[in-house]
């Protein structure tokens, strides 16, 4: 299938090794979260391109497996405008807290069919 030239990653890691990697990752992740670093200072993708607007858009999304793969199929939300998409965003349950922001990202324009 794929050839990775990263040798350390290319052999199948033992469950213990995986465990270690994941533990380290989660520690790092929680550390960052505790410092609140991800808020407003996160990835440029999130902050800078958060409102890249091309007219007449489709908001399309990442490979979140929970619904697509568990309940079936694939997902696309169609919004006629960025404002409408932003309307969706207001329903976000975790954004009640003060200082939290809502980002609407427009990734690809729809021809109505995409």
């Amino acid at each position, binding site marked *: 299938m*794929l050839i990775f030239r990263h040798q350390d990653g*290319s052999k199948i890691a033992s469950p213990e090794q*995986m465990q270690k990697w994941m533990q380290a990752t989660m520690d790092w992740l929680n550390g960052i979260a505790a410092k609140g670093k991800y808020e407003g200072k996160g990835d440029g*993708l999130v902050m*800078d391109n958060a409102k890249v607007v091309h007219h007449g858009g489709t908001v399309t999304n990442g490979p979140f497996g929970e619904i697509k793969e568990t309940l079936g199929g694939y997902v696309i939300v169609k919004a006629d405008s960025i404002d409408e998409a932003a309307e969706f965003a207001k329903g976000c349950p975790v954004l009640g807290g003060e200082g939290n922001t809502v*980002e609407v990202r427009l990734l690809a324009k729809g021809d109505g069919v995409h």
Partner: protein
Amino acid sequence: MEHQQIIPHLFRTEYRKLISVLCRYFGFDQIELAEDVASETFLIAAQNWGINGLPPNPTAWLYSVAKNKAKNQLQRGNLFDTRIAPKIRETATALYAYEPDLSPQNINDSQLQMMFAICHPAISTEAQVGLALRILCGFGINEIADAFLTNKETINKRLYRAKEKLREEKIKIEMPAKSEIERRLDQVLTTIYLLFNEGYYSLSSDTTLRKDLCLEALRLCTMLVENKQTDKPKVNALLSLMCFHASRFEARIGKNGELILYDDQDTSLWDTDLISKGAYFLNSSAVGEQLSRYHLEAAIGYWRTQKLDTPEKWQVVLGLYDQLLQIAYSPIAALNRAYVLSKVAGNKAAIAEANKLDLTENQFYFTLLGHLYTGIDNEQAMLNFRQALSLARSMADRQIIQQKIDKLSS
């Protein structure tokens, strides 16, 4: 391999290299010329190898033909344009002095630079994806149209406009300045991410095509990780995310191309190699002070490779979704969070959250509600599944929803 098999194979691996090198050689404004030369090279190979059999080193053969054709092109262009385009002639004369450099180093550099040139903020993201498919992945117009569920004309127009725009902007095949790399890299990552999604969740019924899209996205991202300038934590995170999801490729599509849902997948078909690669790259990504959406999605992706149904697992996943929604909100991510919430706090709590989203034009909104109501209020469940059915466009989706309805009414 016979030449009938080796040519498509070489086309996949070598076309993009030729295009990238030739484009750098001719200048980006001559991108069509580069495409012509690369395509003709393969055409000649098909004819010649059919008659004379395979040369001992097919790749070297292709390179040498491409080199000659490129030189001839410039020569011809030079004569042709003496009167009408003295400027082009000057450039051409200067370039004619040397031939395209097809050394591994230059091939690699050119491809990376090409990636940045294509993922330029001047053109729309979908045009970037289209160009990436065409130029970096060697996809045919038909295949691209198929992937985007549109027709050839639309794709041709879209690519033409994008190339025009890049010409107007005088894009060069070069690495962005150091100070620019971080920002421009985001655009490149978005394109790779979309490429992967297109393959993973595309409506296209062509499963080989879909798998190819995912593999190409993995390949492009791997190139970025292998280059010092672009080997950033978020690039590793994206690669990890894609490895985790790609690990289920064999398990999630049945013999007849139908989707196999997560719970029904044969886990022995999950690719453990890709899962451990995913963990490796996720670990590599966990450095520095920047937490990107890719980090969180990769961590969520990891938990999907662990088929546990423990409260602890779902609690961690819920936490990841909460963080994700704060840095990169999307209604779909929120909908998925509602599903995870049902695992942690029960269906009723999840129904309340899902209702807030009010995505009444989205089939998955109704599918999720149908699922959550099942066992609590089957009448409501049925209503929601029927709504989902009326919104579903693909045959595969309709079948799956119909099965849920049948199950509920039996």
